[in-house]
C-alpha cells in the first residue's frame, strides 16, 4: 500500500512538473513575440494583447488539465480501493 502511495506521489510530481516546463516555455516564447511585435508596431498593442491572453489560456490548458488530474490522484485516488 505504501508502495502504491509512493508511486502515486511520484506520478503527481511528474505530471505537474513536466506540464509546467511545457506551459512555461510556451508562454515565454509567446510573450517574447508579443513584446517584439509591440515594439515594432505600438498601434497594434491592444489588439495583440487580447489575442495574447486568449493564447495564454490555450497554452495553459493542457498543463492545467494535468494539474487537475494530478490533484485528483493526490486526494481522491480512484484506483485505491477504499
Amino acid at each position: 500500500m505504501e508502495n502504491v502511495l509512493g508511486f502515486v506521489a511520484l506520478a503527481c510530481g511528474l505530471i505537474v512538473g513536466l506540464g509546467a516546463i511545457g506551459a512555461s516555455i510556451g508562454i515565454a516564447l509567446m510573450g517574447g513575440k508579443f513584446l517584439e511585435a509591440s515594439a515594432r508596431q505600438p498601434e497594434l498593442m491592444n489588439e495583440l494583447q487580447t489575442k495574447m491572453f486568449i493564447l495564454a489560456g490555450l497554452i495553459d490548458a493542457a498543463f492545467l488539465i494535468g494539474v487537475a488530474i494530478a490533484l485528483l490522484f493526490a486526494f481522491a485516488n480512484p484506483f485505491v480501493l477504499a
Partner: protein
Amino acid sequence: MSAAEHAGTQGPTSGEYIQHHLQHLQKNFSFENVKQSSIVDFSVFNLDSVFFSVLLGILGCFFMWRAARSATAGVPGRFQAAVEILAEMVENQAKGVVRNAKSRKLVSPLALTVFVWIFLMNAMDMIPVDLIPMIWHSVGPAAGFSDYMRVVPTADLSSTLGLSVSVLLVCLVYNVKIKGLGGWLHELVAAPFGDRWFLYPINFLMQMIEFIAKTVSHGMRLFGNMFAGELVFMLIALMGGVWAWQFNPLTGVFWLGFGHVVAGTVWSLFHILVITLQAFIFMMLTLIYVGQSHDSH
C-alpha cells in the same frame, strides 16, 4: 489537523477534510442520497452544481434584463454603462469572428450569456471555502440531504462538459443550416485532405477527432482551472485550520496563520484574473467554433 466545526472530538485528518470537501451533493434519479460509483456514472446528478448554476443563471439574466429595460437615449448610469461596455465588447469579438450577420443575431447573445454565466459561476470560488458548507451542515442533514456541498459549478466536470457539448450542438446545427445536410456530409468526408474516394475514411476520422478534441478541451480547460483553484483554496484553508487548532506561539505551527493570510491573499488576487480570463476564453472559443462551422474548407 481539523476544521473548527469538529471542535471537541477527534477531528478529520487533512486528507479527510479535503476529500469531504471534494464530494458533491449527489442524488440518483429516485432522489436517494448516493455517491457515484465510478469516474463516469450517469445514474447520479450533482444537486449542488445544478442548483447553483441555475440560481446564477437566473441572477445573470435578471441583471441583463434590468439593464436592457432601462436603456435610454440619454446619459446612462454606471451599471447601465458597464453592461453596455460588456455587450459592445462581446459584439466586437463576434463581428471579428462570425462573418454572417444573420447568425450573429443568435450567436452574439449566446456568447454574452456564456461569458456572464461562466463568470458568475467561477466567481463562486471567491466565497470562503467553508462558509456555505458550514451553513449547509446545520440545515441540510436535518432535511434529509447528505452533508456534502460544493459551491463552484464550473469546478464540476459534468457542468463544464455540458456547456461545451451544448456549444458543439450549436455548431452542428449551424453546420447543417449554412451548408445544407448534404453539403456538410460531403465536407465531412472531403476535408481536410481532398475529395478522393480513397481518402474518405481518413478525412472522416480526422473530422471526428477534431470535433471530439475541440469539445473535450473546451470543457476540460475550464474544469482544470477552476478545480485546481478551488483545491488550492482548500489547502490554504487547511493551513488556517491547523493554526487555529494548535494555537501555541511556541511551536512553529503558529506562524502558519501568517502563511494562511499571505498565501490566501496572493492566490485570491491571482484567481480573480483566472476567473475572468477563463470566462473570456470560453466565450472566445465558442465564437471561434461557431464561426468555423460557417466556413467551408
